[in-house]
């Protein structure tokens, strides 16, 4: 009997069931997050995707092979050929160190995983951790039910998946986890006011600084939160302790990363946090004085207090402005200034403007990446504003700023996604709480909602309100007639509608992940009419040809998009790569690509180039090839060499960019054109189209007989996607420009010697004939003039 009642009490322990349920839901969310990102690995193979991850993989490889200190001090002479790159000081090491640590840990347990597999699967692992961090954050902000919903949302939402599929080994994979974990710890610090949580926030902030350049967002959002709390009159000593401890420890920790260096005290992006720190200390001190000087009149004190606070705020602002003008503090850098003034980058920094991820966001992207969450997100903001407290101010500010930034740049949809998930979860949780509550006066409810404990409390409260308020309550519930039955039906309908919306959300997310965000972009795949798959592996084919058939020290020139891939897969020295830190060097390469062959050869000789690599999509209709990017090359080159390269020269007189016969002569004779279309004029892909028909531009090319003087074709891949040319050395004998003088003219007349019989050498001329015994005759004795002169 006693045992039975024990079991019964154990089984009916709601807190126990609640924690078991939340644990299993979180575990399922982790699994969903991990497996939803594996499409590319299953369809293709475990390979690093895209461009930037190849550099991260190469650095991690270096870290694992040579150790941590050699990685921090690495000077890479195989990138940016004559200049080299100081990798230790220009990279955020968090990603590499995380992967290296996991690799070291697993290998020391004798689970011998290759570093490539650790890198490929790092992002899905951390996305599972992100959903746990989102759960913790939302639990602090609202309730446990909302937290579970938020965890499930962020596990599968496409906005986050796009940057964290398996194989996308990039900073954002771990940065979003660090961001949400830092925010969770900050909200916890604000709620408790303990230095311990503030210290933990600083440590999580340090991890975020090491992981991503977007840490600037944290160090501006948290001071903004404190400032808005001050403006709202919600100052309390908890915020004082939390922010001051976090700021000073976070400042010192953030300067440990070599890439960040002394920026936190020297650039405008970090000045907001320092300003708010000074303001908060001034405010706290004045409040302390206020409590001590309560002997004076209250109103006098209050006005003095306000005046003092305003004066100190003005003083802080003046100091920051003065320092910026005096040059001690650098102004906003181009990357962040272009978020404020969106037209700035197109004019001044064309490289930033040319990246496709930096374009403004379209409405389609919002729905594509967030589905129904973007509709319920404002509802969540409204709920947070209605029941405002210190931490909900933070999430509202996060929502507003993230919405603005996501509208400016497609890439920043990623920072909007977590807050949309959190606020939509709050909205959905509110709806479900209201409509899953059963107002009938029963005690046990074995329904399958997760908010058991809170539901019980709310039910009791609403029952009390119902009883206490009496008449008022009755009038309100009058139109619904019998409150139990009709209310029950309406509630069921609403709950079912919400469930259907959520199921459609899950289906949409999986469909988007499968179709749009799971391509490795190193390997292209197309599907035939019968559904079978046709794989185009040209990129890797070309890179491996380079790796196996060229000298180890040869230099490859290509456009900067492919630099990291060439360095990673082909292991050859490149001239420019995706880091784009040196605009002039890229402009030189752009100038070489846009000039005619002779001028380009001079530049290539000066840069010691051995091979040139171009991407050409005309045979298969690939639209991301170099001819489509060519105008950006011209623009970037024109930015540095405006006298030699003019963008207008490459357009027709009517202003079109055409590669057929009507194209401009400069375009038809430039190096990029020749490299792409060499021998293409003889190729007929289809009997309906003429030879030399470019499938991407859908025109027949203009200049078909192309010959090179200084280059020769080294390799073209199977579908003509990648073309590699070798730069020939200078000739041993330089051909002269003027006509060569002929030295082999045969004379028209035959030469006869003037030395006849009587005039040959060795013959005495006019020799006297002497017969012995006879007198020499006088008639032969005619002295010739010549004989006498010879004597």
């Amino acid at each position: 009997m006693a045992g039975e009642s024990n079991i019964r009490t154990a089984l009916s322990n709601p807190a126990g069931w609640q924690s078991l349920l939340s644990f299993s839901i979180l575990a399922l969310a982790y699994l969903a997050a991990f497996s939803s990102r594996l499409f590319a690995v299953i369809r293709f193979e475990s390979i690093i995707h895209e461009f930037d991850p190849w550099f991260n993989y190469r650095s991690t490889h270096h870290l694992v092979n040579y150790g941590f200190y050699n990685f921090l001090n690495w000077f890479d002479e195989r990138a940016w050929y004559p200049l080299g790159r100081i990798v230790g000081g220009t990279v955020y090491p968090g990603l590499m160190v995380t992967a290296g640590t996991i690799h070291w840990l697993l290998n020391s347990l004798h689970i011998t995983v290759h570093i490539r597999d650790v890198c490929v699967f790092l992002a899905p692992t951390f996305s599972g951790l992100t959903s746990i961090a989102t759960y913790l954050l939302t639990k602090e902000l609202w309730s446990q039910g909302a937290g579970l919903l938020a965890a499930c949302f962020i596990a599968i939402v496409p906005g986050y998946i796009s940057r964290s599929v398996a194989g996308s080994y990039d900073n954002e994979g771990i940065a979003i986890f660090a961001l949400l974990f830092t925010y969770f710890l900050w909200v916890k610090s604000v709620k408790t006011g303990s230095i311990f949580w503030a210290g933990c926030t600083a440590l999580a902030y340090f991890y975020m600084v090491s992981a991503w350049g977007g840490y600037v967002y944290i160090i501006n959002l948290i001071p903004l939160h404190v400032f808005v709390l001050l403006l709202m009159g919600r100052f309390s000593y908890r915020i004082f302790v939390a922010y001051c401890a976090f700021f000073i420890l976070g400042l010192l920790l953030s300067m440990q990363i070599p890439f960040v260096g002394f920026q936190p005290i020297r650039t405008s992006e970090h000045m907001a946090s320092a300003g708010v720190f000074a303001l908060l200390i001034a405010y706290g001190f004045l409040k302390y004085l206020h409590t001590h000087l309560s002997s004076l009149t209250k109103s006098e004190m209050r006005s003095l207090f306000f005046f003092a606070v305003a004066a100190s705020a003005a003083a802080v602002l003046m100091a920051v402005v003065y320092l910026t003008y005096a040059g001690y503090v650098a102004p906003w850098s181009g990357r962040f200034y272009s978020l404020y003034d969106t037209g700035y980058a197109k004019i001044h920094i064309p490289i930033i403007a040319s990246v496709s991820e930096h374009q403004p966001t379209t409405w389609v992207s919002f729905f594509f990446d967030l589905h129904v969450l973007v509709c319920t997100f404002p509802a969540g903001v409204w709920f947070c504003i209605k029941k405002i407290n210190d931490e909900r101010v933070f999430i509202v500010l996060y929502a507003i700023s993230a919405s603005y930034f996501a509208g400016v740049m497609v890439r920043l949809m990623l920072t909007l996604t977590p807050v949309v998930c959190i606020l939509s979860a709050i909205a959905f949780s509110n709806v479900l709480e209201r409509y899953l509550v059963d107002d009938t006066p029963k005690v046990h409810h074995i329904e399958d909602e997760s908010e058991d404990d809170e539901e019980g409390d709310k039910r009791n409260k609403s029952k009390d309100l119902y009883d206490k308020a009496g008449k008022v309550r009755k009038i309100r519930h009058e139109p619904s007639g019998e409150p139990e039955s009709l209310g029950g039906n309406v509630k069921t309908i609403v709950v079912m509608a919400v469930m259907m919306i959520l199921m459609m959300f899950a289906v949409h997310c999986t469909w988007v992940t499968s179709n749009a965000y799971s391509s490795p972009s190193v390997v292209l795949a197309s599907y035939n009419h019968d559904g079978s798959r046709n794989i185009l592996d040209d990129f890797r084919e070309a890179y491996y040809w380079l790796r196996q058939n060229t000298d180890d020290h040869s230099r490859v020139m290509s456009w900067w998009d492919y630099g990291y891939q060439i360095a990673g897969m082909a292991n050859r020295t490149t001239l420019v790569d995706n880091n784009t830190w040196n605009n002039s060097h890229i402009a030189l390469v752009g100038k070489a690509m846009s000039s005619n062959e002779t001028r380009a050869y001079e530049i290539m000789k000066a840069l010691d180039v051995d091979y040139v690599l171009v991407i050409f999509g005309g045979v298969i209709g690939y639209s991301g090839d170099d001819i489509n990017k060519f105008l950006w090359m011209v623009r970037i080159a024109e930015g540095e060499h405006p006298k030699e390269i003019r963008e207008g020269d490459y357009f027709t007189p009517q202003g079109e960019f055409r590669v057929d016969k009507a194209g401009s002569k400069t375009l038809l004779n430039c190096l990029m054109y020749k490299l792409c279309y060499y021998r293409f004029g003889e190729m007929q892909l289809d009997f309906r189209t003429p030879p030399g028909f470019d499938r991407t531009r859908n025109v027949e090319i203009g200049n078909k007989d192309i010959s090179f003087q200084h280059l020769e074709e080294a390799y073209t891949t199977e579908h003509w996607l990648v073309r590699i040319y070798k730069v020939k050395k200078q000739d041993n004998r330089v051909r002269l420009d003027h006509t060569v003088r002929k030295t082999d003219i045969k004379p028209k007349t035959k030469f006869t010697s003037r030395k006849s019989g009587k005039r040959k050498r060795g013959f005495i001329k006019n020799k006297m004939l002497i017969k012995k015994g006879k007198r020499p005759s006088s008639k032969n004795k005619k002295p010739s003039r010549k004989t006498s002169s010879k004597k």
Partner: protein
Amino acid sequence: MATSQANVFTVVSKFYDEYVTTTPQRLKIIDAYLAYIMLTGIFQFGYCLLVGTFPFNSFLSGFISCVASFVLAVCLRVQVNPQNRKDFLHISPERAFADFVFAHIILHLVVMNFIG
């Protein structure tokens, strides 16, 4: 003008009297520690102005160490002050001190790394 000056003086002297009489012993110890830290910080900054900022990371680590010790001690004082009890319901003075020590461990480890 004379009255406002008199006002300022009376305010300051009143403040000093009130401070000496009403603050508990613990807070006075923390205040003495704060004054010492502030002096150290002023000396460091003065030295930097005299000699220059050559190993800038060393100067920064030393100066920020002073500022951080000052700030953490101020936070401790705020948490331990019995007047602020209602703000810090779940933090006893012992817990506040333990947090203070934890933050100082982090601080000094980072300072040791940064000092170069």
